[in-house]
């Protein structure tokens, strides 16, 4: 087992333009280094051996959290630790902090970035499902110019996303959910630092105590983060009464296809996946005002 990465050339651009130029020059031979908490372990195991590493850690434009009207705009290189400390982010969408605190461990959260978490395309990452619940959009820059892709359209499979070679995620734009919305992120894991055995996020709003809008998304329960659209639709107009809740959980389980691994069999992970959906829904409803 090697734990020394293969040799590479290191680049530390100071601007997004400089970074995209480097990516365009080196194409498939370049990888972006964000916080490095996923990529560096992969390089140590030689599961990744990029010839050029483009460290985007010195690009000031990729930092910062701002409220812009009805949107929260978070720079891609914002670390999980910075996100957790941001009152602006937590006031607007408290599910961000709740989910962030469940990622890895303190040291990894000081280095690990929100952009890296959502752009890596690892189905075990937690933020993709959160961004799907919030209906976030990803701002992307490439040699051809800027474009925006919705989180709900971004994920294609394990390590496969809408991000093309040469492109870089620059920021995440989150429409601020209405005041009084309910939210929860439930993650079952074997220990702190582990990826989810199963996890589910919920963002909902209520009217007269009944669910008016609802988004449910799942982490590590398929080859990518998935939005449980049918499950959420079942719950509109309900207050999670038994028959509707059971139907929603069944609909969520129907789209789960977790791999059998050291965290459990496909059957077990699907079973607890349903439990995570139920817990997240109950906690989100209890928090909702309206």
């Amino acid at each position, binding site marked *: 087992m090697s734990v020394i990465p293969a040799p590479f050339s290191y680049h530390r651009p100071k601007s997004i333009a400089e970074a995209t130029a480097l990516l365009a020059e080196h194409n498939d031979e370049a990888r972006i280094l964000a916080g490095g908490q996923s990529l560096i372990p992969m390089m140590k195991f030689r599961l990744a051996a990029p010839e050029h590493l483009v460290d985007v850690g010195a690009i000031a434009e990729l930092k910062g959290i701002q409220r812009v009207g009805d949107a929260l705009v978070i720079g891609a290189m914002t670390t999980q*630790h910075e996100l957790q400390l941001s009152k602006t982010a937590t006031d607007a969408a408290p599910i961000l902090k709740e989910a962030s605190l469940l990622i890895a461990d303190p040291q*990894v959260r*000081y280095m690990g970035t929100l952009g890296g978490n959502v752009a890596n395309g690892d189905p075990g990452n937690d933020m993709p499902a959160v961004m799907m619940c919030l209906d976030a959009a990803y701002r992307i820059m490439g040699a051809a110019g800027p474009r925006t892709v919705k989180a709900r359209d971004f994920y294609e499979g394990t390590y496969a996303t809408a991000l093309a070679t040469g492109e870089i995620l620059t920021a995440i734009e989150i429409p601020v959910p209405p005041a009084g919305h309910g939210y929860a992120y439930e993650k079952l894991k074997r220990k702190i630092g582990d990826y989810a055995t199963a996890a589910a996020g919920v963002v909902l709003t209520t009217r007269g105590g009944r669910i008016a809008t609802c988004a449910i998304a799942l982490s590590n329960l398929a080859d990518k983060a998935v939005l449980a659209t049918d499950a959420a639709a079942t719950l509109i107009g309900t207050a999670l009464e038994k028959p509707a809740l059971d139907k929603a959980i069944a609909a969520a389980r129907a789209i789960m296809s977790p791999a059998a691994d050291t965290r459990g069999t496909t059957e077990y992970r699907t079973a607890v996946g349903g439990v995570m959906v139920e817990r997240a829904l109950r906690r989100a409803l209890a928090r909702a005002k309206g």
Partner: protein
Amino acid sequence: MAKMHVKMNVNGAEVESLVEPRTLLIHHLRETLNLTGPHIGCDTTHCGACTIDMDGKSVKSCTVFAVQADGAMITTIEGMANPDGTLHALQEGFRMMHGLQCGFCTPGMIVRAHRLLKEIPNPTEDEIRFGIAGNLCRCTGYQNIVKAIQYAAAKLSGAPMQEAAE
């Protein structure tokens, strides 16, 4: 690959070196700078034995390249004791409360706890346990590590300290 010039402040001293880009910070600290306090435990970002303080962050130095630390302020366990050579409150706490047995995790534990107490000077037991969740100890069961950090928190807040039984 060509070596790169890096400059960092390590435990108060400016250090300049040439490093290969793929050199991990832990190897740079241990093998080039002879700072063998930070340990290599798992080498896979789990155990926290290699934890150092970099620009006010607790980081696992097995998961950072030395080139990323160019310009950084770094503190390792070697930089924890007071300038007069007396023990830092955390080091004293680990000794007084028996916060170590084999000692392998201790340098990482103390450097991590240092940053935790900077951010939360008077942490609850839960905050301590959550705050050191990235550092594994296979000897103590953590009980006395928690007590050692509580001891240091109290001492750093100016509380009169009672001598622990030796």
